[in-house]
């Protein structure tokens, strides 16, 4: 009888405490070799970005650049020498972290008051694109970094009634190819934008409620999105660049605040309003595990970029001020 029972869900590897505020975003940087140690960046509601040393499980450094306003997106560029952080103070800060420094060297102001996280795409050596909500509530702006020149502004047709953009994902079919943007909107639709033409290519209304988060697998041309409903929607992009619903997955409790596909495209994780983290097989959306640890809404999930697959970790940040670190499905 025991043999037929599923294994009990695992415990976290460890839990990071000490953000003293709800955690909104997480980002790993684990690729560098010894003696550099793996680190995790966390952004919290108190406006702080903390740099966690994953060897000692302690905060090595705290960055305070958003005037106490919630930080909800962080991303590294140039290895871990520079960091972008997006805060509710309507600013995106560029931090110089090289050689032990920690100062803001540049910043971009946004007028948007929404919760939409930016998205970054590396185009070439020292050239990035960043997609962010624009001044006009329903527009998305794409800038080139580090020059900060505007590449395009993605404006929906009049009468589209998409509402505000909620989540963004820049991608390109291959390195050097023309970049695209997947954007989830307040009305529940996901839209594919062509950046070079600034044109909407396809629109898919896959949710009844605002799209909270999405991730796209450009290799399989398949994406997943979560909203405040009880549904995870998996959609695909056909050769004519039309978005189609591929599958929907019913959840027991409603509300997905974040969804992330692991780099190896084998599993995906969701952050739930029901305090739970869910793991699915990406291929067939087979539910693999429900991780029950947090005592409040889980805001974000992130997979580590360890070069050795066996070391890969999953981190989840929650309203309960904790970051749980898990080691899952690594033996492939």
């Amino acid at each position, binding site marked *: 009888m025991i043999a037929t029972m599923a294994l009990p869900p695992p*415990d*976290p590897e*460890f*839990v990071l*405490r*000490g953000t003293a505020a709800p955690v909104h975003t997480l980002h790993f940087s684990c690729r560098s070799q010894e003696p550099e140690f793996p680190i995790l960046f966390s952004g919290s509601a108190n406006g702080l970005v903390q740099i966690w040393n994953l*060897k*000692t*499980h*302690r905060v090595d450094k705290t960055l305070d650049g958003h005037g106490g306003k919630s930080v909800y997106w962080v991303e590294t560029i140039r290895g871990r020498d520079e960091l972008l952080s997006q805060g509710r103070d309507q600013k995106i800060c560029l931090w110089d972290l090289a050689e032990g420094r920690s100062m803001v060297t540049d910043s971009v102001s946004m007028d948007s008051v929404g919760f939409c996280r930016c998205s970054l795409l590396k185009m070439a050596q020292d050239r990035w694109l960043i997609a962010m909500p624009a001044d006009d509530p329903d527009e998305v702006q794409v800038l080139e970094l580090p020059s900060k020149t505007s590449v395009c502004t993605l404006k929906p047709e009049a009468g589209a009634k998409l509402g505000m953009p909620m989540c963004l994902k820049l991608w390109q079919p291959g390195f050097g190819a023309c970049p695209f943007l997947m954007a989830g909107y307040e009305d529940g639709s996901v839209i594919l934008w062509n950046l070079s033409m600034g044109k909407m290519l396809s629109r898919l209304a896959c949710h009844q409620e605002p799209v909270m988060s999405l991730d796209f697998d450009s290799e399989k041309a398949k994406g997943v999105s979560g909203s405040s409903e009880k549904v995870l929607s998996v959609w695909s992009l056909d050769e004519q660049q039309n978005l189609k619903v591929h599958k929907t997955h019913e959840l027991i409790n409603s509300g997905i605040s974040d969804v992330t596909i692991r780099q190896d495209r084998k599993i995906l994780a969701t952050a739930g309003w029901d305090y739970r983290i869910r793991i699915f097989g990406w291929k067939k959306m087979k539910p693999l595990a429900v991780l029950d*640890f947090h*005592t409040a809404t889980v805001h974000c999930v992130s997979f580590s970029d360890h070069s050795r697959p066996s070391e890969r970790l999953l981190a989840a940040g929650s309203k309960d*001020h*904790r970051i749980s670190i898990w080691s899952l499905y690594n033996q492939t």
Partner: protein
Amino acid sequence: MAVFDTPQEAFGVLRPVCVQLTKVQTVENVERLQAQLQKVNAAALQELQEYVLFPLRFTLKTPGPKRERLVQSVVECIRSILSVTCVKKQDLLHELFSELCTCLSSPSGLKRPPPQSEEVKLTVIQALQALMHSAYGDILLSLYQPSTLPHLGFAVSLLLALAEQEKAKEIRTSALKCLQALLLHCDCQEYHRLLDKEESQRCGDLFASFLPGISITLSRMITGDIKQGHMITVSAIKLFYQTVGFIMADEQLRRFPEKKEKPRVEQSRIADLMVHRGPDWVQSTADKLSLLIHKIVESSSVHQHWKVRLELVELAHHLMLKSSQSLVASVGQLLKALVGLVNDDSPKVRSRSSEVLRSIAEQKVITENRALADVLSENLHSLATALPRLMTSQDDQGKLSTLNVLLGSLKLLGSKMNIVLNSTAHLHRLSKALMQVLELDVTDVKIVEERRQGELPASLQHGLQKGQAQKKYFRFFTDERIFPLLQQVCRVLGYYGNLYLLVDHFMGLYSESVAFRKQAALVLNELITGAAGLGLDVLHEREAAPSMDDLKGTITSILEEYTDQANWHLVTSTEEQEEANDKLAIPPSRLRALTEGAHSSSHVLSSAAALEPNPTIRSMNSNIWQLCIQLEGVGCFTHALGKEFRVLLMSALYPVLEKAGDSTLFISQTATGTMVDICQACGYGSVQQLISENTDYLVNGISLSLRRVAHQPHASRVLETMLRHSDASLFPLVKDVIQDVLFTLDQSYDSQAASFLRVLHSLMAALEVFPATAEEPQGNDTGAEGEASLPAHAQVAKDVMERCIHLLSDKSLRVRLKVLDVLELGVTVLHPHDNHLLPMAHRAWPALVTRLINDDPLAVLRAFKVLCTLAEKCGDFLRQRFSKDVLPKLAGSLSSQAPVSARAGPVYSHTLAFKLQLAVLQGLGPLCEKLDMGEGDLNRVAGTCLVYLSARQPMKLQEAARSVFLHLMHVDPDATWLLLNGVCCPHRYPPPHASLRPVQLSGMGRPRGELTDNVLHLLGELEQRERAMLWPRTQGAPEPHGPPPP
């Protein structure tokens, strides 16, 4: 003093006496010459040396029997001449040498000592000695020619015979000294010409012929009767090693070809006597010498006199230095001697032998000399093979010397020991011996019995357990010097040995069998200590120390094994068993009865063990030791890594804290010691600092453990230890996990209540001493509830009390008792916040009442304590409820039970009813005082308790009843006085004025009754108190009440 300075003058003086002596050879004439010689200075005498010697030598050579007196005085005179002059002629030297030797010749040959008197013998020996010293440089060497071999041989035999067979010590010592000079090893202060290589070689060739005689005789002397005195033994040893070392010198022997050289000397008779020191000769001589050396070592190493043992060290040193190749077969023997003397009783021997060992090691005699290394490895091989047998069969002294030898061999071999260790069979043998000899004696029952007294202040424990290892007792030895020696052996193994190989091997033993687990852990701990180069004294540095990363890796893997579920969570007490059984819902009636028998569990346990030889006591004891050794291991590891250990605290600190909270005193003490070790090694100023700087790791461990039912008790122990060792500053950090605890408790009241209550108790105890200043500001949690918001710690106290109210009616007495304790602390913490405390008290009241009136006496007592605290903090709130809900029932039951106890026999005191009565009586007094009860209630209490003052009541109840009245005296002395006097009034109180009516008290004039004694006692007490209260004040003040002091 010399009168005659020039040879001419001297000649003038000496000539007549010389002539006279030549003519008439008498003692008188010799003495006359002697007297004249005194007047001649040395230079002058040197010129006349041969002239003066002539009559003397002539006297000796005159044929016919001679009187001994004459011989003696002649020889004495020769000696005195030789001692101030030089012999510059070869012939003279040769002739004098043989003439002197001839003086002691005897017809019976050399088998027996010469027949002459002792005086003559001594004088001749001294003269010979003087001759050896007076021979001029190269002239002396002329004596050492193949042609003189017979003469030398005679002299050597003669001196050996004298040295061995004479009775007089002086003769024996002088003979040895003379022999030393003859063999060119004189160690006196005078100048001695050093031999060059050629000369040494030649002399060595000559002396080789004497080697058998010299070595055998000397070894006989050395191993002979100890009554001969140590001086002779010492000299003999010295001569032995000097001679052997000279003749068997590797340097000389290296030059000998296989084939015998064509003898340079044509005289074939002498050539036959000569020895050719070729390989065959060396081999056979070394074999024979090895027997002699063996005997010498055997006897001298245990010689009573330290100088003899010291000389043995020199022997070993000298021979190893000079002849380690030729005497390779004896090297093992010599090393054994040295190594065995390293722990000698005499400090001089100790320091010299370790110095010698060190120098041997430093000169790389061992490591570069393959033969020697082979011998040592060989020794180690055979020692390893024999070790298991030796460790079981030898007595402590034998073990000590065996282990000393083992240690010494390991130290000398250094890294070469790996050759032996790489042989599986030998490593196996070695480890088997260690496993055997390190077997602990685990029969001490006390270890299991001693419980930690929950609230022992942390600071007190530090002083007690400053990183000291628990004293261990072993099955197979008692000598206290053996364990340190074994530790040294393991450390040296760790220092030089292949750490991976060794750790792997002993880890294998550790997991292989319970029988070896403790010993293997002991060994592992020491291996690591040694590998880190700590706590040991080595002869030479190892070539490559393991890198910090390697060491860390090794330690990490051992730690993982140590703290693995199966090795860390062992049953060490019956409580745990019971807890485990509780979970299985099997009521183990006997054990339950034991623990319900309250705190005297140790007593009960031992009697239980006596009744039924419980095999688990032994295994629990063994488990306790296992854990202690592992905890000590953590201490060793932290010292091995120093500050680098800080990274490992992530996983290592939690298990240590868990054990610091263990209920077995022994374990918690050891774990506390380990924490002190960690502080020292990792640079934390105190245990408190250690805990507070690593709270994140601990909290992480706790919160993860709380998720697994089986680990919850451990998590609560860790939290308990954290709280016990810390102050309020910890609170913000643990707040997070306390929520987890409460959450988990909510999920599992039944199964885990007991273990969580311990945590809650520690928590509340910590909060109780929480300084008001440390209260953290209420960030964004400030609710708009209207109610004054609580500081975080009070909120926690409130949360905890909520749970306690539920648990007040738990079916387990232990739980109820603990809950009452927690509740009491909670009341104190919440006290400043009345609008939270009072509702809480209101909700707790019904359950508390049940505890007070309808529970086990123990619970009643505790409930009273809670009630008292509650009364203190919110007295008004309770007064009414108490007099309504509780007092009537208590009073009723006391009254109805009183006649029963008054009639009861001695067995009654074991009944529940008795305990209950006692509990209530003991509790009532303080309560009356705290609750500030009204007159009616007080009267009721007094009335109820009065009957218990009866002398018929059991003594304890009388005492308790008296205590009630003592409390009542505080509350209302007058009423109590009146009441008591109503029963019995010992005094008359005449009115102060005739117009007043006399005082009439109902107790007056009563006959002596059952209450009288106690009442009188109480009245006496009351009187004393009144006086103590009154006298310090102004004397004249009118007394407010009570009778005047008599």
